[in-house]
């Protein structure tokens, strides 16, 4: 096999940060080349150099042996490079079909051919196993997973020789991931090369051919065999240390521990119905289910961000006023929402300001803020979460995706909550930080916080929670201790009766 793409000595500097410091990457036609590295290692930056979104400060790129200059996304697209970016880059008010064909709309004399676009979009979505996504719906109204599918469809809509996928599976559930893999295999059979980024090592094993590992903006290993290289070795290459990738031991929840959160018959028509559960102090309740099963909606309703049509939420026995975030916050409920960019982050603000925004009162006397105290508190958390770069004065916008997620989490860890609602807390977080986060969640529970955890990784839900609730199409189909059920049973439960 000849090399389709060779990148050598790529350097990219941002003010104050050397994101890429001499990276090499070579990709062959028809292979799935995996890119591994910790949060902030430079994976996304490398991808953006490859797609012409960033200009490298040094280094060369060869396509099919020819040196190329990719000085704009258009240039890269013209050379057959397509990408699914980590931060979904869709236009929320355009429809699904319009987003898929953005920039290369089927048109005659400048007039868009809507029917052709719709038909072709439907075809591509079908190929991705998502024929149910309506092509004329505004993308902004789709859930994160739906948007991810649209993003994939967009990459596929171009006749690309090389498709780059930056954490495409972060918001997908297991079934959808296998769907994605089917598509990828189809692509590689046709000789298309795929660069695949993920923090889930088991995915690398399933789909990858070769692996390149980045650390601190430099290539530390390349051409590793995706199936053969031991996990320990990969983690060591990425982090420089060895980490046991396991869940910390559970603390027993005393059956006498007071019930903190009681949710009863919570209903929002069209989203979920009759949801009820209780969480004791120190207990972790996991919500499992497919994407779209309504887990996020349940959390947001409990938090008051959505108003329940019926049903009640009680904290320490006191009913919360429905549809009032304030009431929930006052009662000591905190929500780490799933969409960090739109629901959580103040992108232009410094890291520490993002971390303290929910706890400002603590750092203020008479309304005046003590910046130093804020910075110190934030820095402490940044350290324990292994934030990279560790400074807390950068605007959050400049952080890598995984590190942004850590900032969101840090905000809620800082707050003394009675109830913590965590929606996909480890999305896009690397293995090293992941184990830190697990430990932190456990510590919080040990300190008496009632935690509700939503995650698309069944393993994580089972490994971390004490009890699980399984949701299917907005209804609870199973409630019970986490240890009494295994991954397959959960998957059976969530899939049961589904058309696929």
């Amino acid at each position, binding site marked *: 096999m000849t090399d389709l793409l060779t990148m050598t000595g790529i350097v990219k500097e941002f003010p104050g940060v050397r994101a890429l410091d001499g990276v090499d990457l070579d990709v062959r036609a028809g292979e799935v080349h995996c890119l591994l590295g910790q949060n902030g290692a430079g994976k996304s930056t490398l991808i953006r150099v490859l797609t012409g979104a960033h200009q490298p400060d040094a280094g060369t790129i060869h396509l099919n042996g020819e040196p190329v200059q990719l000085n704009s*996304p258009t240039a890269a697209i013209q050379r057959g490079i397509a990408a699914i970016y980590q931060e979904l880059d869709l236009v929320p008010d355009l429809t699904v079909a319009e987003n898929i064909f953005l920039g290369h709309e089927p048109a005659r004399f400048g007039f868009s051919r809507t029917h052709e676009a719709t038909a072709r979009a439907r075809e591509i979505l079908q190929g991705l196993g998502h024929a149910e996504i309506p*092509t004329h719906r505004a993308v902004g109204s789709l859930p994160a997973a739906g948007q991810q599918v649209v993003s994939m469809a967009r990459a596929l809509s171009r006749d690309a020789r090389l498709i780059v996928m930056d954490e495409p599976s972060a918001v997908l559930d297991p079934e959808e991931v296998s769907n994605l893999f089917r598509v990828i295999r189809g692509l590689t059979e046709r000789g298309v090369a795929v660069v695949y980024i993920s923090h889930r090592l088991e995915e690398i094993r399933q789909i990858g051919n070769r692996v390149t590992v980045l650390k601190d903006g430099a290539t530390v290993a390349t051409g590793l065999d995706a199936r053969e290289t031991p996990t320990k070795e990969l983690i060591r290459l990425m982090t420089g240390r060895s980490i046991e990738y396991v869940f910390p031991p559970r603390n027993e929840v005393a059956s006498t521990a007071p019930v903190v959160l009681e949710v009863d018959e919570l209903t929002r028509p069209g989203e979920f119905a009759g949801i009820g559960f209780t969480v004791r102090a120190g207990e972790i309740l996991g919500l499992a289910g497919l994407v779209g099963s309504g887990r996020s909606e349940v959390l*947001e309703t409990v938090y008051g961000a959505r108003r329940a049509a019926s049903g009640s939420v009680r904290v320490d026995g006191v009913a919360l006023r429905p549809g009032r975030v304030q009431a929930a916050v006052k009662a000591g409920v905190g929500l780490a929402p799933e969409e960090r960019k739109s629901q959580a982050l103040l992108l232009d603000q410094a890291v520490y300001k993002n971390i303290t925004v929910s706890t400002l009162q603590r750092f203020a006397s008479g309304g005046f803020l003590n910046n130093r105290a804020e910075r110190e508190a934030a820095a402490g958390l940044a350290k324990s979460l292994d934030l990279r770069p560790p400074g807390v004065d950068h605007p959050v916008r400049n952080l890598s995706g995984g590190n942004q997620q850590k900032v969101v989490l840090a905000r809620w860890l800082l707050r003394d909550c009675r109830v913590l609602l965590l929606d996909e807390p480890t999305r896009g977080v690397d293995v090293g930080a992941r184990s830190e986060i697990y430990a932190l969640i456990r510590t919080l529970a040990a300190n008496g916080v009632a935690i509700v955890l939503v995650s698309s990784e069944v393993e994580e839900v089972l490994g971390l929670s004490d009890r699980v609730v399984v949701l299917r199409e907005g209804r609870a189909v199973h409630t019970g201790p986490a240890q009494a059920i295994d991954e397959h049973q959960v998957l059976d439960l969530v899939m049961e009766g589904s058309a696929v």
Partner: protein
Amino acid sequence: MMSEDITTPDTTGETGPDTTASSQATVTQPAAQRSANLLRSGVGRNLGLVVALVVLCIVGVITAGDTFATGANVLTILRLAAVIGVVSVGMTFVITGGGIDLSVGAMVALASVWATTLATQQLAADYHWILMVSTALAVGAACGLVNGLLIAYGKIVPFIATLAMLAAARGLAEIISDRKTQIITVNSFVDFFGGSLIGVPVLVWIFLLVAAAGWVVLNRTTFGRRTFAVGGNAEAARLAGIKVQRHTVALYVVAGLCCGIAAVMLMARTTTGSSTHGQLYELDAIAAVVIGGTLLSGGRGTIVGTVIGVLIFTTLNNVFTLNNLSISAQSVAKGAIIVVAVLLQQRLAARTTSS
């Protein structure tokens, strides 16, 4: 602007902004249902505005029935709406594309002055009035081009760049005209644009044409799609291979061109070119565009809404004048009516989408 963000979530809990009627439609809908949806969503989105306009008309009929409901008066309203309407169509493009243009009024003034200088009029008298028209269009487009270049390549915030153009273009218009009102002596020009076609004034035809063309371009062409994309998420548009900068320039040229057309219309209406033409058009146009439902932060825009917005403001003026209301009372009433119209629009829009 914020409103969008705080508009929805608190009471209803919706976060998706565009849950119009079409969201229930499924993939396999038959064509008939699809067009019904289109109608429903089109009316639904603008229902409140239409209702506001109808209510206004009813008030007009009740308070000044004999004069309000005449064909002549309707044509008067349309003629008044025509000039600012054309400007507003251009403004809709710029705002949908995520920008703003404060210089529209000044561009109208400059174009009208340039197209009515003695030299231009002499040429037009010798050859054809089309020369005056092309001068106005060229001046408008050129100003738009400067705006666009400053914004897209000079990276100056649209508000500031077009504010600078406002000052500069009006100053230039004053210098060229020496602050004199330049009277048009080319009769063929005045006759053509002052005339009527099938009973409808030429100016109204121009307005209809520009609005229709604007609608088609915004909704049926790749240029329109890309305008939404650039306004909705410029970075995404760039990554999709759209030449965002070039597109931005084009949007401001469109706005400038519309100002050139509006200048021609104003020249025909007043038979003059003057540096005082088009005062405060920027506010009027932006108000019509925004009340029509175009998002000031970009990414969502509607020509139909803009046209209704323009009609609401002109009808309001007409009804006030017919009723001989004092100017001060007009102001207060205008403020109140705007608020009521928008509230109505929201409530009705919410109802149609939730049903």
